[in-house]
C-alpha cells in the first residue's frame, strides 16, 4: 500500500466519531480530575456533527475539502478550549492538500504538521504544558522520521502511534501551565491530560482505519 485513499480518510473520521462516543465517559472523567468534566461531551458533540455530515464529506474526492469541512464542523460545534484547537488542526491540516485525493506518508506529515502548528498558534502553547500538543507533536516527529526513512505507511502509522501514546503518558507527570488545569498548579501532577488522550484516540483510530488488525 502506497497511499491513504479518500475512502480511508472518510472511514477514519466516521470511526473516530464512534471511538469518541465509546470513550466519552472516560474523557469526561479525566477532565473532571483536572478540568471541568466536559471534554467527553464536547468531543462527542463535535464528532457527532461530523458523523451527520459523513455522506457530504464522502461525496468530495478532494481531501483538502474534506479536512476543511471537518475543521469547520468541529469549530462550530465543540466549543470550549478543544473546539478552536481541533478546528484549527483540521483547517490548517487541509492547507497543504490542495487537489489531493490520496495521501502519501509525506503528505500526512506535512498536513498534520501544519495542523499542530495551528493548535500551537491558536493556543499559544508548546510541548510540555500538559495539553494535546504533547501527544500530537511527538506523533508528527515520528511521521517526519518515517518520511526520511521512507517507511511504509504501516510502519509510519505504527511508529506515529507509539510516539503519540508515549507523549500522552508523559502528560501524567507534567504540571499544567495552559488551560483550566493550570489553576491546579502542582495538583495537576499525576493525572493524564484529557485533550492529550482524545488526540491519542484520534490517531489510534487513524492507524486502525488504515491497517486492519491481523492484516
Amino acid at each position, binding site marked *: 500500500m502506497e497511499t491513504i485513499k479518500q475512502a480511508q480518510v472518510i472511514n477514519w473520521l466516521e470511526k473516530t466519531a464512534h471511538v469518541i462516543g465509546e470513550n466519552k465517559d472516560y474523557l469526561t472523567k479525566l477532565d473532571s480530575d483536572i478540568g471541568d468534566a466536559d471534554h467527553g461531551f*464536547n468531543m462527542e*458533540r463535535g464528532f457527532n456533527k461530523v458523523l451527520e455530515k459523513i455522506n457530504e464529506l464522502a461525496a468530495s474526492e478532494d481531501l483538502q475539502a474534506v479536512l476543511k469541512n471537518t475543521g469547520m464542523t468541529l*469549530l462550530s460545534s465543540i*466549543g*470550549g478550549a478543544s*473546539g478552536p484547537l481541533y478546528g484549527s488542526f483540521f483547517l490548517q491540516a487541509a492547507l497543504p492538500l490542495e487537489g489531493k485525493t490520496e495521501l502519501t506518508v509525506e503528505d500526512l506529515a506535512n498536513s498534520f504538521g501544519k495542523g499542530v502548528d495551528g493548535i500551537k498558534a491558536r493556543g499559544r502553547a508548546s510541548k510540555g504544558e500538559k495539553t494535546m500538543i504533547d501527544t500530537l507533536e511527538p506523533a508528527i516527529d515520528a511521521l517526519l522520521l518515517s518520511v526520511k526513512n521512507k517507511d511504509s505507511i504501516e510502519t509510519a502509522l505504527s511508529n506515529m502511534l507509539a510516539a503519540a501514546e508515549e507523549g500522552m503518558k508523559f502528560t501524567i507527570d507534567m504540571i499544567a501551565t495552559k488551560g483550566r488545569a493550570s489553576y491546579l498548579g502542582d495538583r495537576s501532577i499525576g493525572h493524564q491530560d484529557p485533550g492529550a488522550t482524545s488526540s491519542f484516540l484520534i490517531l489510534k483510530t487513524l492507524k486502525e482505519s488504515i491497517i486492519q488488525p491481523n492484516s
Partner: protein
Amino acid sequence: MKKLINKIPDVITEQMQGMLAAHPEIEISLEPKYIKRASATRKGKVAIISGGGSGHEPMHGGFVGTGMLDAACPGEVFTSPTPDQMYECAKATQNEGGVLFLVKNYTGDIMNFEMAAEMLNAEGIQTQNIIIDDDVAVKDSLYTAGRRGVGTTVILEKIVGAAAEAGYDLNKCADLARKVNSRGRSMGMALTSCIVPAAGKPNFDIDEDEIEIGVGIHGEPGRKRISHTTADEITQMLTTAILEDKDYSRILREWSFSNNGWEEKELTSDAFKSGDQMIALVNGMGSTPISELYTVYRKLHEICSAKKITLARNLVGSYITALDMQGCSVTLVRADDEILKFWDAPVLTPGLRWGV
C-alpha cells in the same frame, strides 16, 4: 440530580425560549444560539456583545437590553460558545459602529472569540476583544492561564453598555472596558458543588463540614479547602484577599486595527487603598438565599468602612452563578466619576433594571 429541566440536550434552548416568552424586548436565535435586543439600535452605535458557557444565568443573556449588552452568545453548560455563534450574532447586531466583544479570561472563550473577531475584521466589521480577568484567587499569571473572569464582568457590562448607549465609539468603549477590568477584583467561595446536567453528579466532592475558598464559577478548585465557619470569617477571607492583592500586571491580547492582527498589551491593576470608592457586588452562586448575601454584605461593609474604603454603589444578589452551587463571591471595582456616571445610567434588561 434534581433540577427543573427536561431533556438534557434541550436545556439551553428551553431556558432561552422561557426568557423570550417572559421578555418581549429580547429576541433569540437558536441556530446558531444567541440572544439580542428585539429593537434595532441607533446607526453607528458600537455593538457590545458578550458570551460564554451557560450556567451563569442571569449572565450574560439576562443583561441584554437598553443600556447594557446588545447581544449575548450562550455556549453549552460551562463550555465556551463557538465562533460561528459570535460571528452570526455580531453580523445580526452590529449597526456600522463596530463590535466590542467582552470576553472572560478562559482559554476556550479567548480562542473562540478571537476566531470570531478575525472573521469579522476580515470582512471589514471592526471588532475588538477586551478580556476580563479579575479573580484574585488565581495568584500567578506566569504559570497559569491567568486570572479567571468573574464578578467584574457584570459591572463592566453595565458600565460599557451605558457608555455605548451614550455614544462612545469603539475605541472609547474598549478603553473604558480595559479600565474597568484593571480596577476590578473578585474572590469566591463554595459551600457545595454544582451539578452539570449532562454529568448528573457534583463537579467536586466536598464534605458536609468543609467549604472551598477561592472557587471559580465552574467549581474550579480554589486556594484552600477549610472547615465550614461563620459568614463573618468567610467574608473576611474573601475581602482580605481582594484588599491585600498587590499591583498586578499581565499581558492581554487585543486586536490592532493598524497591524490587522493581534498585539499583546500589558495591563496593570493598582492595589486598592484607603480612600478608594468602590462599586461592590456580593454575588450568590445560584443556590444562595439573598438573606445570606446580606449577612455577607454587612461584614464587607464593616471591613471596608474600617479601612476607609467607601462602597459608593452596590449590588447584592445572584448575578453570575455556577448553576446550583451554594456559596458567594465578593467583587470590588474602584470607581471614578466616569464609571459612576455610567453605572447610574438607566438600564433595562431581564436581569438588571433601573432608571427606566
